[in-house]
């Protein structure tokens, strides 16, 4: 039996003295769309950086296709990344290349294909995201939604086994959002690719995810199918799913007494004058 695409065990990670993860376990099943949700600032993007070996965990084990990302060398890590496609929040297109060249970039870097084959491959991927007609445009000529679709075409051009989406719905209009939702579902179904979607857009994720994890304060506070999360009575799950401003996840960032804070901060100004 082949190893699961992603397996995270007992993950601990801190930035300075601030803990980001304190004992996180995540399993991603083959061929499924797994959602990782959580309020802003819970470390969702950091989780992806750990998963792809951009940063190393303080403790715990992160396995990608059965291999520990902390233990492989650079060549091994690059081999794992070749099996992984990632869609960045802002698309991260190479701004000095056309749309066509952006999608062709990983192919040119890793394979020596005849130009005619490369052209057919790139145009078929652009067709899949509905942007074959934009092949000769520059990234600066694209809208946010189009840039993300081009980035998606680039992410799938090497036919990866795992697709990672970092906040794919942020800043998109409803039509573009619908397009991205449809593309994530279609790519999962037609290519049989495993997908991890990191986002806080509950409705969109509920419509496509097979399984969801909810992160809060460094831990997985809930996990299950979207229906199970929707029925959960856990206060933090209820707050997140309903979008309540206050609750277990407080509205205010931790701070001392307001009056004392105002007086303390006024002090140095008085001295300066």
């Amino acid at each position, binding site marked *: 039996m082949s190893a699961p695409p992603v397996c995270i065990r007992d993950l601990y990670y801190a930035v300075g003295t601030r803990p980001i993860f304190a004992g996180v376990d995540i399993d991603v099943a083959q061929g499924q769309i797994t959602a990782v949700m959580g309020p802003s600032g819970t470390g969702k993007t950091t989780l992806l950086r750990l998963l*792809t070996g951009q940063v190393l965990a303080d403790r715990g084990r992160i396995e990608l296709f059965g291999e520990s990302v902390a233990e492989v060398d650079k060549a091994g890590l*690059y081999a794992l990344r070749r099996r*992984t496609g990632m869609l960045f929040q802002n698309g*991260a297109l190479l*701004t000095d290349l056309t749309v066509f060249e952006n999608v062709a970039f990983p192919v040119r870097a890793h394979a020596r294909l005849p130009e005619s084959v490369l052209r057919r491959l790139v145009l078929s991927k652009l067709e899949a995201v509905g942007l074959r007609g934009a092949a000769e445009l520059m990234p600066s000529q694209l809208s946010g939604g189009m840039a993300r679709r081009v980035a998606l075409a680039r992410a799938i051009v090497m036919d990866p086994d795992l697709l990672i989406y970092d906040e794919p719905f942020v800043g998109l209009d409803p039509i573009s959002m619908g397009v991205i939702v449809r593309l994530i579902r279609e790519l999962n179904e037609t290519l049989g690719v495993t997908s991890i979607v990191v986002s806080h857009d509950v409705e969109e994720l509920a419509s496509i995810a097979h399984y969801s994890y909810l992160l809060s304060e460094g831990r997985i506070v809930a996990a299950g199918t979207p229906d199970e999360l929707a029925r959960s009575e856990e206060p933090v799950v209820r707050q997140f799913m309903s979008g309540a401003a206050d609750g277990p996840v407080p509205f205010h960032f931790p701070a001392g007494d307001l009056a004392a804070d105002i007086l303390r901060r006024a002090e140095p100004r008085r001295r300066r004058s």
Partner: protein
Amino acid sequence: MIGASLGRIGAVAVFLLRVLGQCPAALAKPRAVIHQIYNAGARSLIIIMLCGLFVGMVLGLQGFDLLQRFGSEDALGVAAALGLLKELGPVVTALLFAGRAGTALTSEIGLMRATDQLTAMEMMAVDPLRHVIAPRFLGGVIAMPLLVAIFDIVGLFGAQLIGVQLMAVDPGAFWSQMQAAVELDDVNEGIVKSLCFGFACSLIAVYEGYHAPPTAQGVGLATTRTVVVSSVLVLLIDYMLTAAFLGR
């Protein structure tokens, strides 16, 4: 302070070794390197030629004023040629290169970092050092001697314009004395200096860009550091090389 400076020098040295390790692979795909020679070289041409002309004209004026006090104004061609070939050409071109092409390199690479383009490459299992940094570094190193040669030629034209056309120095004496006095070693000194300056300026520019904090302020500070560090380094290397050449 000293520890931090040594640490920084060490970090630049390690970065240089990593970049040099990627240079053969970058040269194997010369299209990117040629594109960077165009970016760093051709796009700096106008400012280099303009400054070369003015520097040559000033050299013509000052040289004529000095030499006529000794009745040696015919040697103006020699003075201008040696001044440009050995010192002014490489140094002024390098300072202009740091201000124009160096800052462009740093801000471009810094913005690529800030907009996740370099991270995206790493995620595509593509090493940015090979595909972004090495071609830009090589482009700068190759462009610098070419720019210096153009600066020297335009500078000589400027000196000739003032000396021969305006101050009526004999054109035969201007060119023939230059031809007789300037030796291959003088030209080589200029070539060596321009290569060293190109190496230093390009290294600083790509290093600062690659390590710029991914913020607007971070990229701005990195760009400033490129100009300051490159300029000081050029003058330091110039002194060391001049001393070495004179000591032979």
